[in-house]
């Protein structure tokens, strides 16, 4: 009878185990069995208002933290059931630089604290995102995992969950369209804004500070491989840096145009798209933002030219003309001077000898 009872318990527990996705031997089972493993486990935070305290353990076991214990993070839980509400935990308690346990970490999580999001969070803005808003709580997955909210293809949606208007604008842009066509090397939010060290554009540390915009675009647009695959010209950023606009920006005249002044930012469109600010018929208006007299004339000529490049057309020929003229003339001058000195030396010597 006793044996039968024992067998029955084993069978029940086995059955429960197969149903509950965690084994009796799982050290986390103690948290889940009675409380957090039940989908209707909740707490009344205000009269009639409940907060779910359920943890989807199946998802947890597919996360990067699958081998961790609940109490690895919830360190203030020392007895089960716990008597007090556990303290809010923060990812930085493990993910800080120099952690000898070896939580994978770069300087990035630290940078979050200085970012616009981190600052807003520190001010107590209820809408400010913390780590969990992008990385989730219990089902944190690696950025390379297609199911992760910080996987490239999912980033716009993740950011868009708060920045809805920008998200819709972005989806219309060349970058958004490419991403929707599964071209993962297309730019997503974090490529331009960066993820943790996200600063407002007037902050010199920002990737989108006027002096940094060209370099931010250059991360892809100066990459020959990516641009060749996508059939996009690759010298635009270099040409910009050589232009008056580029030189002015470089040496501190921030009101000068940078990439986004003409191309716009979230809704960047091809120059063939009539909605684009760089569509030839729209150029007068686009240039007119700074140069009030600009008319249709600004569309007559190539953009982003490098004089030494044959693609520059007539400018290339002017460049070549002056290159050769300068070389020939300077060589001639030097040759003449040497000849003149030689002649003077010869005659001086002959004079000295009578």
């Amino acid at each position, binding site marked *: 009878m006793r044996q039968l009872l024992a067998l029955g318990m084993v069978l029940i527990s086995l059955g429960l185990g197969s149903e509950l996705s965690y084994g009796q031997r799982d050290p986390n089972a103690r948290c889940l069995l009675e409380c957090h493993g039940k989908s209707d486990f909740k707490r009344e935070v205000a009269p009639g208002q409940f907060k779910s305290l359920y943890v989807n353990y199946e998802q947890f076991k597919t996360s990067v933290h699958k081998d961790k214990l609940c109490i690895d993070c919830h360190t203030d839980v020392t007895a089960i059931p716990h008597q007090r509400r556990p303290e809010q935990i923060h990812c930085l308690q493990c993910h800080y630089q120099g952690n000898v346990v070896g939580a994978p970490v770069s300087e990035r999580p630290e940078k979050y604290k200085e970012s616009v999001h981190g600052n807003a969070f520190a001010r107590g803005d209820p809408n400010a995102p913390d780590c969990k808003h992008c990385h989730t709580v219990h089902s944190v997955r690696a950025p390379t995992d297609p199911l992760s909210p910080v996987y490239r293809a999912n980033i716009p949606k993740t950011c868009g969950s708060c920045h809805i208007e920008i998200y819709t604008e972005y989806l219309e842009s060349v970058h958004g369209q490419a991403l929707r066509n599964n071209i993962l090397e297309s730019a997503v939010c974090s490529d331009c804004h960066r993820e943790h060290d996200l600063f407002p554009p007037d902050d010199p540390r920002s990737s989108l500070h006027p002096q940094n915009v060209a370099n931010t675009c250059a991360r892809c647009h100066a990459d020959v491989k990516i641009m060749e695959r996508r059939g996009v010209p690759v010298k635009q950023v270099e040409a910009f840096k050589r232009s008056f606009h580029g030189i002015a920006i470089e*040496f501190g005249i921030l009101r000068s145009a940078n990439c986004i002044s003409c191309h716009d930012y979230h809704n960047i469109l091809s120059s063939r798209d009539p909605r684009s600010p760089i569509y030839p018929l729209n150029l007068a208006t686009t240039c007119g933002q700074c*140069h009030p007299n600009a008319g249709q004339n600004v569309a007559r000529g190539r953009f982003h030219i490098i004089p030494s490049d044959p693609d520059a057309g007539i400018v290339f020929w002017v460049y070549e003309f002056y290159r050769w003229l300068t070389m020939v003339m300077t060589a001639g001058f030097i040759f003449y001077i040497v000849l*003149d000195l030689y002649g003077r030396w010869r005659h001086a010597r002959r004079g000295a000898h009578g």
Partner: protein
Amino acid sequence: MREGGLMADSANEERLVHELQRELERELDRPLDDAELQRIKELVRAQLEAELRAKQRRSEREKEQEEYFVRFSLNVCLQHLVLAIGVILLTITGLPIKFHDSAWAEFIFRHIWSLEINRIIHRVGASLLMFVTVWHIGWLMTREGRRELRELLPRVKDLWDFIANVKFMLGLSSERPKFGRYSYSEKFEYWALVWGTAVMVPSGLMLWFHRIALAYLPKYIFDVALQAHSGEALLAILALITWHMYHAHLNPEVFPMNMTIFTGKISKKRMIEEHPLEYEQIMRERAEAERP
């Protein structure tokens, strides 16, 4: 005068020898022998001759400075001065823009003057250049200007002069070509300046007043103007630091600096050497003027 000087010197010599002889005899308390006397004579003569040579050199130099011709009027000297200041300002502010990638340009813009200041200085230099251009064109209308322009016009003789000068320098001919008021190298530099100004001023004005010009000119004209401005600038600067630097500074004849363009004066010696035809003409004109 010189004869008299020499005679006076020989009298002087005897007097000096006598004095030295008396002094030495008194000191040694014995008469000097012939060899000693001869030695004193030689020393005194050598000393006097050296003094005479130095005096002659001095007077020659003075004479050279005394006998000069007025090569440039004050007007021309001032034109050159304004032009030089303008070009120096344009060069020191233009080069760092052209070579903005270089470390020295970066150093200038970050530590010496900002790009905003650079732009202002460049436009001050440009204003000086344009001012002197207008001034020069006005001056060319005057009697003096018309005469100078006639002298500056290129002639076939300049080509022959150039060939003859190259031959002379190579030792293929023993005679230097005779230049007039302006040699081919001076004419070349003048017309190079005219050409350079003709390129730099319109292209620079277009870029300066791009807000106005944008209403009338297509973009590619600006690109061409910018490239021409940049290319011509470098050519002009290289011409200045080779051709001009050599002819006005480093040339052994004038080293370290030919002051003629600042003082307007040229010595007779250099006039005869460098502008013999002009010298001959001036002498002829003077002789004619003196004739009743």
